[in-house]
Structure formats: C-alpha cells, structure tokens
C-alpha cells in the first residue's frame, strides 16, 4: 500500500514538472513578445506626444504651365522627424514633394518643394509627419 502511494505520487510529481515545463516553454516567449510590443507602443505614443510642427511660410512660383510651392516647416517638438514619410495635402489631395533634408531636427526648418500644381491662388495645405501629427496653413494667393 505504501509503495503504491509512492509510485502514484512520483507519477503525479513528474506530471506537475511536465506541466510547468509546458507552461514556461510556450507562454514565456509570448509574454516576452507582448512586453516588447507594449514597449514599442509606449515609445510610439511618447514620440507622438513629443512631435509638433508648424508651417511658417509658403511661397508660390510659377512657370508657363504649372505652379510650384515652397513650404517651410519648423519642428517645434522635441523629437527628430524623418521627412521621407511626410505627407503633404494641398486642397485635400496628396502631392508629391522633394525635401531639402532627410531629417527635421528640433527647432530646425526643412523646405518642402511641391511641383506640378495646375492652378495657383488660395490653397489650403496640410503637412502630416511620419507619425501622423499634422499642421495646417492657408495660403492666401
């Protein structure tokens, strides 16, 4: 009877050990991944909170066929912004542009050159940063 109890206890003990092994092997990497994703999300939100831009000046130039705009953007936030993934909307439509700098550092300005606009005059502009923060400007023409 005593030996039977010991055998049963040993089997249950090994089972418990196996269960702990299964849980730690499968769940710990998932928990680690969740923690990493949460950290990245926190970093993104912090970065958004530290991002701010202002459009300080818009200048228009034109040749015989189309119009071009030079948009001056000042980084009023405290994070450095890569300009590759900025978006510029003129009168609501996305426009292709060329930027003078690859990065827009805090308290620095960058010039965005928008070409091939078919019409001049008053324009409503919106510049959106890589992380979705935006600034508006109304160009009076």
């Amino acid at each position, binding site marked *: 009877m005593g030996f*039977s109890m010991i055998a*049963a206890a040993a*089997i*249950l003990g090994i089972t418990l050990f196996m269960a702990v092994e299964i849980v730690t092997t499968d769940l710990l990497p998932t928990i680690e991944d969740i923690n990493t*994703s949460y950290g990245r999300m926190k970093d993104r939100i912090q970065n958004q909170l530290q991002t701010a831009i202002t459009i300080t000046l818009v200048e228009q130039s034109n040749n015989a066929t189309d119009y071009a705009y030079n948009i001056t953007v000042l980084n009023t936030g405290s994070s450095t912004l890569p300009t590759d993934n900025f978006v510029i909307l003129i009168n609501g439509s996305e426009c292709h542009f060329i930027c003078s700098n690859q990065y827009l550092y805090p308290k620095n300005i960058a010039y965005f050159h928008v070409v091939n606009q078919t019409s001049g005059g008053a324009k*409503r502009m*919106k510049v*959106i940063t890589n992380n979705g923060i935006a600034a508006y400007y109304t160009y009076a023409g």
Partner: protein
Amino acid sequence: MGFSLTGTHVIFFIAAVIVAGMVSGIFIAVTMDITTSLSNRGSRVIEQLNTDYTIINDPDIIPMIGEYYIFYLKNIGGARLITTNQTFQVFIDGELIGISQYHFENSSIPVEGVTSLYVNITLTTGDHVLRVVGPQAVDKDFTFMK
C-alpha cells in the same frame, strides 16, 4: 494467505499507477489546451498592440475621383497593415458600407506608409463621420464635411 496479501498489494499498486496515469494524462491535456489558448490570445494582443492607423485627410476638403471619395489612411503602428475589404470595414454616419462600395489602393502598407481608401457613396452637404474598423477591431473615427 501470504500469496493473497502479495496479490492484493500488486492489485493496489497497479490500480494506483493506472489512476495516477489517468489523472496525469488529463492534467497534461488540460494544461496544453490552456497554454495553447493563452498563446493564441497573446498573439492577438500582440497584433492589437502593433496595429495603429489614422485618417489624415483635410476634413474640409475630401478629394473625389469620379464617384469615389478618397480617404488617406496612414499606418502609424508597429507592423505592416493589411488593407483589404476583409480586414477593414467602413461606416459612414453609422451605416455599414457594403464591401463592393469601397476598396484600397494597396493591399498592404508598410510602417509609416499611406494608402488611399476609395468609398463610393452619395453624401449630402454637411458634416459626416467616417468610421474605419481594422484588424483586431482597432477603429478610428474621422469627422469631415462636404
């Protein structure tokens, strides 16, 4: 009598091992089920944490091509975003838009990328609310005027 006692011990031993084995099997199976479920749930939580996007249109002027309104959707999350009619549902003023009435320019967009969402709907003059529901039910509202 001595033989009977040994036989009884053997029977008890076998019975104890069988019962312990059954309990162990059930315990391991339940543990594995729970672990698999938690792991799947964890994967969904990771996807939810990595999914974030925003509508970046100028709310005053929504561009149109033909009968389609164009909304710009920017991926501000931490992972590539799959943009199809199956992964995204679109509501305008609370009305679910049928999947035949909208489509995306790209089937997926990288981190910080932008795609266009084309919506074929007739809007009256005034204020409207676009609600976009993406993967893992991550949703964004965008109020605009026509």
